[in-house]
Each structure stands twice: as structure tokens, then as C-alpha cells.
């Protein structure tokens, strides 16, 4: 709704102003923050930033646009429901966090929660949250930093605000006592999605957060990583497997995800656990650590090549932990020892207590699949 204009900005005016200069405008919302962004030629900064500031700070959230946007979001929810990766991810989040925790609920909402929203509620949320002290503005590119700073101060210096928004308290991250399984069947699935996850730490535990990136790289990043090598390259039991440490403010997840045929489910889960235990017992070698270190450093380098990528990275860090943590991350990568990585695996990846999310093809799917192949020849 922020793109639907303000008192001084008609709906669509920002889009035309940015795109009419050859730029890009968009927004995205995740669990911990929302960001709005434009990418334009550096020379157009002074002419375009005022539109972004006006839209974000003084969003009108007009009544007459609200119902139609509800329809659009409803389409977004339906589209997501037809997407199997989204379904698997949502199943993992529900199973790992439960519905009492905000991370356990879909960022998109559900048709039911969407229907309960009103323009008044959105205006109150906007007025109570979109305050300067909660906001980070990042400008990168071929700019003069002092001019850009002056421009940001001018455009963002005078935000309208309402009474503070009070969110309900966030319960502590649930920790499974044993193995907690969430399963669902999907009529259109050809293959299963298997996710094994362990609750980790909040983002304030920066050293652990960074160390878990190394653990994830050792287990599942690249063809020589342990799980990819064994399960995809050697045995061919999975079509794809990867490992990631999901970093969230109130407590993240260490997650191993695989896509595979149903017949291989049991042995793949058992092998993953076996590899995790092996990592805990035998640790990792220096060469393996060097590889992970180099890959992670270069991945950051490669992912920050364009100004818009760099702005996303700076904004993410500053919003959640402070931008100085970026440098700390790079330094920590160099400082970790094999023993520390092993200890992290021992501390967080218990083979007795973890979360499983399993999305399976519906049992009746065998017949449907062969029909489908006929239909598309």
C-alpha cells in the first residue's frame, strides 16, 4: 500500500517517475524488516529520492485503493499455494516455530488474516513503526557522499508519526525435546522436499552466527561439500541438496534441504544424520576449513559487485546487527579453528532433537502424473 501514494503523490506516480527515468522501484518484506528500494542512474538521485521518501514516510494508504490491493495480495497467496518450494518452506517454519511465534506464521498472511485488515489498521501500523529511529537509509553508487547525506537529511528529516505501535511480546524460540515432524502431501508434487532443521541463536550471538555459516559450507555448499559429495555426486539419491543457516533476529535455524524421490527418503534422512554425527565426532580438517573460508569470503565479494547488491547488504546488516559486523564477519572467518567449528556442530546440531518438514507427493499422484505426461507428450 505504500506505493499507492500520499496526499501529494497519486497512485502509480512514483512508479512512473522512477521507471520513466529508466530505473527500478520495488519493495520486499521478510520476518524481521521491510525494505523499499529504487535503482537509478547516479545523476537522477536528487530527482528521484524525494518520491521514495514521500511514499515511505507519508504513505496515505487510501481507502479506495485498499480493497483492490487486497485482491492482488490474495492472488499472491494463491500463487504461493501453487508453488511447492514455498509450501515446503512454510511447513518448516510452522513446524519449527509453531503458530504462537511470528516466524511460524506466513509473512504473506492467510486469506483469513488478510480479510481482517483495514486501511485504518494499516495507517496506525505505518504511523507507529515508520519512525526515523527504526529506519536505515542506504545510498550506494557513483555519488558524492556529502551531497547524498544532505539530500537524505532533507528528504527524510521530517517524518510524520503517530502513537507508537505496540507489538505483542515475542515468545522464546521453541526448542524441540525430541524429533518434531511436520508432514504434508501435495497433489501436484512429483518429488519430495525434505528439510531437517535445528534451532540456533539470535542474531546478537554474532560469533556463533558466523561460525554456523562455516558449518553450513562444510556440509552443503559446493560439489566437494560433505552432503553434496556423498548424496548427490556419489550415490545419486537426491536431485539437489543444500545447507544454510537462516539468520533471524529472534533465533534462527540451521537447515539442510533436499529434493528427492520418495523411495529414497528414509536412507537420505539417515545419511544426513550420520554425516552430522561424524562431523561432531571427527571434526573438520584444515583444508576443509580453508576451502569454506575462501568460498564464503568470495561469495560475499561476488554478491556485492553492483551498487544495488551492496545497498541490500549494508541495509540488512545495519538494520539487524550494525554494519560494522560485516567486517567482523570477514575477520571471524579467518580466525576460526577446526576445533571451534566442531564445537559449534556439537552444541547446535543434536541428532536427538531436531525438526523435520516433509512435503510429499499425494498418494493418488501416480495416476495423475502419467496422464499429465500424455497431455504434454
Amino acid at each position: 500500500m505504500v506505493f499507492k501514494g500520499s496526499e501529494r503523490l497519486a497512485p502509480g506516480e512514483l512508479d512512473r517517475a522512477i521507471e520513466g527515468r529508466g530505473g527500478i522501484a520495488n519493495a520486499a518484506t521478510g520476518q524481521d524488516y521491510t525494505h523499499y528500494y529504487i535503482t537509478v542512474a547516479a545523476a537522477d538521485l536528487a530527482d528521484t529520492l524525494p518520491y521514495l521518501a514521500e511514499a515511505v514516510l507519508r504513505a496515505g494508504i487510501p481507502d479506495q485503493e485498499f480493497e483492490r490491493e487486497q485482491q492482488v495480495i490474495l492472488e499472491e497467496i494463491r500463487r504461493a499455494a501453487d508453488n511447492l518450494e514455498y509450501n515446503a518452506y512454510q511447513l518448516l517454519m510452522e513446524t519449527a516455530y509453531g503458530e504462537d511465534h511470528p516466524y511460524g506464521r506466513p509473512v504473506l498472511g492467510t486469506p483469513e488474516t488478510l480479510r481482517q485488515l483495514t486501511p485504518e489498521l494499516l495507517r496506525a501500523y505505518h504511523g507507529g513503526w515508520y519512525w526515523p529511529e527504526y529506519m536505515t537509509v542506504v545510498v550506494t553508487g557513483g555519488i558524492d557522499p556529502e551531497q547524498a547525506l544532505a539530500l537524505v537529511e532533507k528528504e527524510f528529516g521530517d517524518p510524520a508519526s503517530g502513537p507508537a505501535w505496540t507489538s505483542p511480546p515475542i515468545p522464546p524460540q521453541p526448542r524441540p525435546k525430541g524429533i518434531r515432524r511436520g508432514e504434508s502431501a501435495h497433489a501436484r508434487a512429483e518429488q519430495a522436499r525434505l528439510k531437517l532443521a535445528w534451532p540456533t541463536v539470535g542474531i546478537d550471538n554474532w560469533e556463533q552466527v558466523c561460525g554456523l555459516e562455516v558449518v553450513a559450507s562444510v556440509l552443503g555448499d559446493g560439489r566437494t561439500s560433505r552432503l553434496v559429495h556423498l548424496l548427490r555426486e556419489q550415490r545419486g539419491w537426491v536431485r539437489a541438496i543444500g545447507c544454510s543457516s537462516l539468520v533471524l533476529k529472534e533465533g534462527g535455524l540451521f537447515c539442510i534441504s533436499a529434493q528427492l524421490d520418495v523411495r529414497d527418503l528414509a536412507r537420505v534422512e539417515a545419511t544426513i544424520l550420520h554425516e552430522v554425527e561424524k562431523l561432531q565426532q571427527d571434526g573438520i580438517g584444515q583444508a576443509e576449513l580453508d576451502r569454506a573460508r575462501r568460498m564464503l569470503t568470495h561469495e560475499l565479494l561476488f554478491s556485492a559487485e553492483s551498487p544495488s547488491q551492496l545497498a541490500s547488504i549494508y541495509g540488512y546488516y545495519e538494520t539487524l546487527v550494525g554494519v560494522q559486523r560485516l567486517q567482523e564477519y570477514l575477520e571471524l572467518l579467518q580466525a576460526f579453528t577446526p576445533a571451534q567449528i566442531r564445537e559449534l556442530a556439537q552444541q547446535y546440531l543434536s541428532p536427538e532433537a531436531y525438526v523435520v518438514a516433509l512435503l510429499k507427493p499425494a498418494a493418488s499422484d501416480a495416476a495423475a502424473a502419467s496422464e499429465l505426461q500424455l497431455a504434454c507428450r
Partner: protein
Amino acid sequence: MALQSGSLARMSSTLLATQRGRLQRLRLANGITLLLGQNPTVEILAAHCFFRGGSRAEQPHQAGLSHLLAAVLTKGTRQRSSQAIAAWVESLGASLSVDSSADHFEVGLRCVSEDFPELLQLLAEILRDPSFPEAEVERERDLMLQTIRAQQERPFNLALDQVRQALYGDHPYALPGLGRLQTVGSLTREDLLAYHATYCRPEGMVMAVIGPEPPETMAAQVEAALGGWVSPGPPAPDPDLPLPLLERPQLLKLSQPTQQTTILMGFRGSPAASADYPALKLLATYLGSGLSSRLFVELRERGGLAYEVSAFFATRRDPAPFVAYLGTAAENTPVALERLQAEIRRLHDTLLSGEEVEMAQRKLLGQYALSKQTNAQVAQLAGWYEILGLGMEFDQQYLQRVRQLTPAHLHQAAKTYLLNPAIALVGPEAALAKVEL
């Protein structure tokens, strides 16, 4: 190697620097065309090698062969195993990828510049002496069969697949790059060896390299690694491929238990070398690119009919698909299709205003510039134009032609190409039953 904060700060000037730098073209004695560009603002080097071939060169019964080659090419050489190759690349924190597309296949490398000479040795080995180990071929073929099945999970793929078949008949563009279960199932190591010998050769190969070193330095490095590679035998013939006549609109329905109906409308446009290519690109931008595009504003912002609605026109050697699509609630299927058809009719019946065309031009030019920010993006685009036979200069010629387009040009292009669509509907049976042409 430690990354200092300074190197992150330096990256912000990449955009300007790479746009300013002009690429140089060099021909090696063995027929390799080298495109070289210097971008001293980053330590990153991107190198992309292009070969003619791709899906377009496949026999119908071998559909998917080029894709399988891409999957297995880095899985072993006469000197090294798959794991040894991956260990070499990953220990340097580099990435090496092979991709097959409609008209070519390419090998892409990204690394820090100081590792380039070493990785070039590996690259040369992979291009010249791949061993296609039997076990690797079998495994990748099995996983490809799984991937083909998994592709059917996406309604968009099911819709596009039907439209491609309707527009292209016996032409290879009719098939997905992955091929079909039947064709992939019968591919062998011998097929790969033959395909490699025919298409993976220095003569006609294009290699684009963008990095921080001077072009002479990078050229010498490439020459040292690949200069001694000699083409085995004569090049493959390059036959003209037949296209079916499109005489009337076609409606294709595939019922699926989905929440949304995917509506995809496809036309057969022009080849990239055609004078009409820029006009069709601009029409696709006008219709479907960004938040201010015609389809986005009319069908989403005013109509509330969709979340995703878009259009694209591909860049191909032969006439390329022009596609508009959206996903809509099952009950809105008839009205959304009617609105989409009305937007195409409007392009036939009325001349766009000068203002509308200028807006689309600015958008296309700006977004084109934004798509060339990283070294890899610059290398990929220049090499692609070169392998398509357009030459890397097409980059600027194309922009020049886009600037010169008028409403009359777009009207002419719409009347010539946006005819006899193939329309695919993928969604719940009850919703599809209500729709006829």
C-alpha cells in the same frame, strides 16, 4: 586472502567503470574470438566461453543432449576426476558453470583475478579433454529425468511447454532445453562424445573476459592456455530449420488442481538479427516490464486480477517467442483472458501516444544499462551477441535503434507479429471449461 573493507567500498563504482570501458576484439590463430574488457575497480574476473550448438543443434530424438553435456562436461577429464576438478575450483573460492540454451552452450568462470591463469589451465583441460565417465553420465541422466518430472510442478512451465509446441512444431524451439523423458532416457556417452567433437571446438568459439588486468595481459594468458587447441575436422553443417505455418489462434487447455489459472499467450516474433527485433523488444517492455507497464497497471493495479503479470520477448537466431502471461483466481479466468486479448487488440487498432512510447524507451534503455552491472553480466551479453552472429557491437546498435523507434514502428510490428497466438490455460477443470476462443 583477506577482504578489507576498502575493497567493498570500491565496488560501488563498478557500474560506471564497466560502462565506460570499451571491449576489444581479438582473433587467435586457431579461430577463437576473444572479447576483452578491463574493469580495474574490482578484483573479480569473469570469463565466458560460447559455442554454437545448444538445443537448436539437436536431432529430435536426442532432445536434451546439449543439456546433458552441460551437466557432465565438468565431471571428469583424461587427467582428473570430477571431485578433483571441483576441489580445485572450490579451494580457490571460484565458480565454474556450464549452461545450455536455445542457440548455444557456454562455460562460465568467476574468480578473483590472480587465480585466473591457474583456472585457465583447468578450463582448457575441460574444454579439450573431457572424459564423460560412464558413471557420471548415468547419474546425471537419471537426475535429469527427475528434473524433467519436477518441471511439471510449475504451472508456468506446463503452459509455456504447450505454447512452444504450438508455435514451433518440428523446430527444436518447440522443446524444453531439458528434452523429454523418452529422448533423455536413451542418450549415451557416445552421443556426448559426438556432440562434443562437433560443437566444442576453437574455431567459432567466442570467449569474453572482463577483469582488472589490461587486455594484453588477459589475452596472453588465454593464448597460453588455449592457443594450441586445433579444431578436429570440418565444422558441422548449419541447416535452416522449418517453421510451421500459423494460420489461426489456438487455445490449449490443461486441467490441474491449482488455486490459480495460469494464462499464457504466445506469438512467434522475429529473429534477433531482424530490423523488427528492437520494436518487439520495446513492445514487450511497454506491455510487461515493471510497475508502470500497461499490463501491470490495467490488469493488476486497476483490475485486481493478478499479482504476477508480465511479458517478454526472447533473443534468438530464429524467430523468437513473444509471451504475455498472468496468474489469476480460477473464477476470473474468462475475464482475465478477455482483458489480455483486449490489450493485444488495442495494439492492432490504435497507435500508442508519443508519450507512451518515450516512457517505454526510457525504461528499456535504463533497465538494459542496469542489466550490465557486474563483470559477468557484461561478459555474458557481449559473448552472446557475438555467438549469435550479431557481433558485440550490436549492444550499441540495438540501443541506437530503440531510440529511433516511433509509435508507427510499434504499430507495424504489432500488426505483423502479434497475430495467431497460441494461448495456454493451466488451471482447475471447471474454470477452463468456461473458456472458448
